[in-house]
Structure formats: structure tokens, C-alpha cells
């Protein structure tokens, strides 16, 4: 199979043999896939500088196996030049994608939301809303059904109530003992509307996405979270 000039991004690259790289890519129509860039690490390679995350690329490849061969790489735009904690956040998105998006499965929605999120990080928009909106869209696109309008019995969520999330059931009214995992209905409504302006909503969304990602991520914690721990 040959694919020409497919829009995509490199999520991660690792050395392969003496002078090559294995690129973990996210593409618009072909989802996540591994490409081998032959000779990309040799001193005179022009590809080397392009084989970096956060550069909008056009990728061409061929091959049938799970490891295809990169035949050309071009940039669509300049590298996004993420800086500081926006760069850390980009690395966090890349780690989430490499951990949770299966290879060779088309996922145009995830690609779109990734591209939107990277643009927002490059524009240095407030981090928390960008990350939470991406996480919630990603969960949805991975097929994780999170209904932010109705409770487990099909009743509308009410702004003034407190809710708890029950895996595989949905929202239930929080019992009298409020735990850290209780969420005000008003925050859930804001999340549904993609409105993360309010810091309280941001905090609820962060707790909620961590609860939801936990079973998907398993025992191994996300490493990129460590980048934020000392800087904040």
C-alpha cells in the first residue's frame, strides 16, 4: 500500500538500528501508525530536523506490515514552537495518545481535536480549559460514553444537586457523605457546554477526567505529569 502526502504529526520518535528512526505518528485518515524513517539520524539527513513532534507534516509511506516505511516527509507549516508549560502540555497530549489510541485505526475526530488543542497551546491560551476539553473529547472519541446531561435513571442533571459518577451506570445523586468524587450539577452542565472558564469547574473537570482515564491507563502512571509537579 502507498499513501501520499497524508496530513499528520509525529507523537514520538525513537532510534532504530544505527541511523534510522521509528516514528509514532498520528495521521488524519489512517490514525496512529509506526513509520520507519531510514537514515534519518545520519549526519547529512535533511529529514532529521523534520522528524520532531509539534510540526504539521505531510507524510508519505509504503508497506504492508505494521511497520511501514516513510518515503517522504514535508512540513505543512513551521513547527508550532511550543514553549515552557505549553510544551509540557503538548508532551502530555502525546503521551495520552500513544497510551490510549490503538494503532492502525482511523480516528479523524481525535486527529481534529489534537490539531485544535496544539493550535491553542501554540497561542498560549489558558492551559486548563484546553487540556480538559481535549480529554473529554478524546474519551468520547475512544467510545467512552459520558453523558453530561442525564443521570443513570434518565433524569436531567440539575444544577443545584451534587452527583457521583458510577462506572458503567452513570450519574447518581451523591449521598449525604460528600466525597472528593462528588460533582456539583452546575459544573457538569458547564462541562457539557465546553465552558471551562470557572476555576471550580476546571477543578471538577480535572478530578473527573482523572477518574475516567484511570482504568484506561492501568497501573502505569503518566510520566508527563511529573514535569508539572515541580514547576507549579
Amino acid at each position, binding site marked *: 500500500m502507498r499513501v501520499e502526502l497524508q496530513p499528520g504529526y509525529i507523537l*514520538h520518535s525513537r532510534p532504530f538500528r*544505527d541511523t534510522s528512526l521509528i516514528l509514532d505518528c498520528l495521521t488524519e485518515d489512517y490514525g496512529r501508525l509506526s513509520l520507519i524513517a531510514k537514515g534519518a539520524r545520519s549526519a547529512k539527513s535533511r529529514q532529521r*530536523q523534520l522528524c520532531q513532534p509539534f510540526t504539521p507534516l505531510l507524510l508519505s509511506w509504503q508497506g504492508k506490515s505494521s511497520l511501514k516505511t516513510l518515503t517522504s516527509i514535508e512540513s505543512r507549516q513551521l*513547527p508550532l514552537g511550543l514553549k*515552557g508549560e505549553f510544551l509540557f502540555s503538548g508532551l502530555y497530549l502525546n503521551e495520552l495518545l500513544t497510551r490510549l489510541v490503538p494503532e492502525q485505526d482511523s480516528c479523524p475526530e481525535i486527529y481534529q481535536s489534537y490539531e485544535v488543542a496544539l493550535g491553542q497551546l501554540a497561542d498560549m491560551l489558558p492551559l486548563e480549559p484546553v487540556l480538559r476539553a481535549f480529554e473529554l473529547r478524546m474519551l468520547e472519541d475512544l467510545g467512552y460514553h459520558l453523558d453530561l446531561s442525564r443521570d443513570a435513571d434518565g433524569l436531567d442533571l440539575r444544577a443545584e444537586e451534587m452527583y457521583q459518577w458510577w462506572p458503567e451506570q452513570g450519574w447518581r445523586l451523591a449521598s449525604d457523605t460528600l466525597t472528593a468524587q462528588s460533582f456539583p450539577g452546575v459544573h457538569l452542565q458547564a462541562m457539557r457546554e465546553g465552558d471551562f472558564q470557572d476555576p471550580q469547574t476546571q477543578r471538577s473537570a480535572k478530578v473527573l477526567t482523572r477518574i475516567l482515564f484511570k482504568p484506561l491507563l492501568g497501573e502505569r502512571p503518566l510520566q*508527563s505529569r511529573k*514535569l508539572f509537579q515541580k514547576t507549579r
Partner: protein
Amino acid sequence: MFSPLIDELMSSLRCLPGVGPKSAQRMALYLLERDREGASRLASSLGKAVEGVGNCSRCRTLTEETVCGICANSRRDDSLLCVVETPADVLAMESAGIYQGKYFILMGHLSPIDGIGPADIGLDVLLTRLQSGEIQELILATNPTVEGEATAHYIADQAKAQNVQVSRIANGVPLGGELEYIDGGTLAHALSSRRAV
């Protein structure tokens, strides 16, 4: 086809970068047929190096001493510390011949997806040195890659918190490079870090 000892030698040689089955076979046969003396020397120096070489307690570079030659050199400026990714980067800096401070070698860079976090590249050791107050300026010479930039930013935050002055080496148009042939990313970087003339 070969006896077990020769087979074992060939497969051991393949741990070297760029050595496949063919070259491993060539090397093994060469050593056994033509240069037994060289082979013994190689075996013994490999053994000694693996046994004896560790990391410098101050800069983390490879050395059999507790403190390496550069760190121990009292004529070099102790208040200036240059952070690089690998011992090869130290060689490159030294061959430029203008740097008179000391080094800190990360032996890698931050790479969350590979599971490499701050402690894995010695940043706890670096932080202790920054806290000691001996260092006045930190020069970040990690590679101009995404991971190199992330590493530089992380260290810069740590250093600023200790009131240490921090600078990042400039990356831009190489000497003798023609603009036409320089990729967009390098050019953008060069433009954003331009200075007045």
C-alpha cells in the same frame, strides 16, 4: 556452522552499534585468525573498563575517578556550569575551545513517553549543586529538539527558583550555511532569537 564459543563471540559482538551478523562474523574471524594478541588486549580492557568506569560524582560524565578531570581542574571557573545531554557534547564544546567553566551531563533528556523523568537524568543531583550557591550562571546546551527544549525549560525553572542566572545557547543559521538550504524550523528559530547589530 561454527562451534559454540565462536558463535557466542559473534552474537556478543552484535551489541556494538551498526554491527550486524555479517560484520560480527568478519570481526570474530579476524580476531581469532589474525590478531589473538589484540583480541586479548580488547578482552582485558573491556573487562577493566566495565568494572572500573562509573560516573563522576559532580558532573555525571563517564570516568573511573570519583571526580573527573574537568571537575577537578581548579583553573576552570566553578561559578559557570554548562548542561549538556551526552559526554560527546562535552567533547564538542571542548573542541570549540572557548568555554572555561564546568559541565553537567544529563546522559539523556526528559522523555515522558520513554518513561524518562527528572530523576533519571540526574536533576536531583543538579538541584543540590544549584542549592549549594557556588554556581552563578547556568548555560543550557541541550539539543534543539522538542525533548531538549522541554529539558532546558524544566531545568531553567529549577535554577531560577535558586536565583541562578540562566541562559540557553542560540540555535540558528550554521556558519557557512546558505539560507536557501536551511529548513523552516531552524530559520524561524534564528529569526526569533535575533539580536541587534
